[in-house]
């Protein structure tokens, strides 16, 4: 702890940190583990609410609308729709960590490249996921465009297996 600077007559500043250590977040059984395990087979699993028929991806354990527990699981399509997107500032190494790995170091994003983040709703689901949109130029992205999931070359059953999404069709805009 130390005094930083004497800028004002009436107040001074005391440096302080709040090091509260690591948290351990709990996820219900069959929620995160099963979702991620199925990534090994390149499958996306969602939960189906029997009250309203809505499918949630990533899985939700409780349906807020029906106020009931969700137990059913269904596989959902690899294809989806872009609900919204944004273009990030140029990337720096060591600055962007997605799903626990440095995207630049892992090689699927280049240093100095701009990354497009897309809010994707997979076919037949009622929720959305924010994923990187790969293999597309910012000027070619349109809302509502069809995209499909991109998987890592070797899927190990980790969250980083789902690298992002890419345009499902080669459409050229004029």
């Amino acid at each position, binding site marked *: 702890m130390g005094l930083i600077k004497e800028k004002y007559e009436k*107040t001074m500043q005391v440096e302080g940190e709040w090091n509260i250590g690591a948290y351990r977040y709990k996820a219900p059984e069959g929620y995160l583990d099963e979702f991620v395990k199925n990534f090994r087979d390149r499958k996306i699993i969602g939960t189906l609410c029997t009250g309203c028929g809505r499918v949630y991806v990533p899985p939700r354990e409780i349906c807020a609308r029906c106020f009931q527990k969700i137990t059913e699981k269904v596989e959902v399509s690899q294809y989806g729709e872009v609900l919204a997107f944004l273009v*990030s500032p140029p990337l720096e190494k060591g600055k962007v960590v997605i799903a626990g790995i440095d995207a630049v170091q892992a090689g699927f994003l280049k240093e100095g490249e701009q990354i497009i983040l897309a809010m994707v709703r997979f076919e037949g689901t009622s929720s959305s996921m*924010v994923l990187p949109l790969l293999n597309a130029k910012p000027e070619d992205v349109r*809302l509502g465009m069809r995209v499909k999931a991109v998987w890592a070359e070797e899927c190990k059953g980790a*969250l980083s297996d789902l690298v992002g999404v890419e345009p499902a069709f080669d459409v050229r805009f004029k």
Partner: protein
Amino acid sequence: MKVAVIGYAVSNLEWDAEKTREETVFEVAKSALENAGVSREDVGTVISASTDFLDGRTISNCMLIGGSGAYLKDESKAEEDGMYAALYAAQRLMAGVHDIALAVSHTHSWIFNPHQVSQYMLEPWFDRQNDLINGITLAALQARMYMEKHGVDELDLAEVCVKNLRNAAKVPYALRKLHDITVEEILESEMFSDPLTELMIAPPCDGAAAVVLASENVAEEICENPVWIKGIGNSCDNYLRDRDLAKLNSLEIAARKAYRMAGIEEPFREIDVAEITERFAHQELMAYEALSFCREGKGRVLIEEEMTEVYGDMPVNPSGGALAGDPICATGMIRLIEAAKQIRGEAENQVDGCRTALAHAQWGLCAQKNLVFILGDEP
């Protein structure tokens, strides 16, 4: 039981304020009580609002007892916007337990940048794994969705900023006072996250606000011009991934509840002025629609036709709104105070013949939770 606002105070909004957190709260609490013409002894209950994360200490109201005047009193804290503190205070008065309540709210953003922690509002399993997702990028995604759905472009967002920042030029405590700002300057300011530029994002700053509320009999007895709370509506939506981000459903429901309680059937005609919390420029347009000032998708028309200017048919944010200065937890309470000032005829950008005013506060990512107050000049 009716409840009225009988006093208020707002501190200066600035970045890196010279006063400490406790001093700022003491200043506003004291001047709000003076403004109401009551002393600390008359106050029955004190509610404060701030967030522990931004204060850098937990149960942060413990250190604030001296400043807020809550010493040995019935005290509680809302970990939310200040308008929720006003809501709890009003509910305590309505229950008939107390006669006078003081609600204070404050945030010193300089202590810890709020955008730095917006990531920790995300759910930890999926969304927090992605470094690029935070409060601003999510708002940009929301803006993009809304703009695409209703054919709104960046110019319309810039128009909102121009209106609010020009209005703020007259407000003495505001942070961003830009009386000659133009649409081009807004669009050319630094791009934070496409389509949101620096001036389209509410600037976090240091500040505090306080209001004094009183129950029906006391308000009529001690105050010459009490401002009556006529309607209250509160609603909370789903987590951002499971809802339609392009529409503020929870605000629409909150507004409908408040209108019903206040007996308002045609909001556009019956409400004279609205003070809303727009953390990002596009949220003001979305709020026009959710508050039923226009049909869905027509928020753009109100701003293009200058209807929401101070001289327009439906003035919105004559104080400059959150874009003029955003002391996170005090922002909503300042909207409530500005709405009360309009009814009392004390506002800097006074709307002529103002008798009914609306105040709105939001909380959460992409305006997940919304609270609406309707104020009037008679009970």
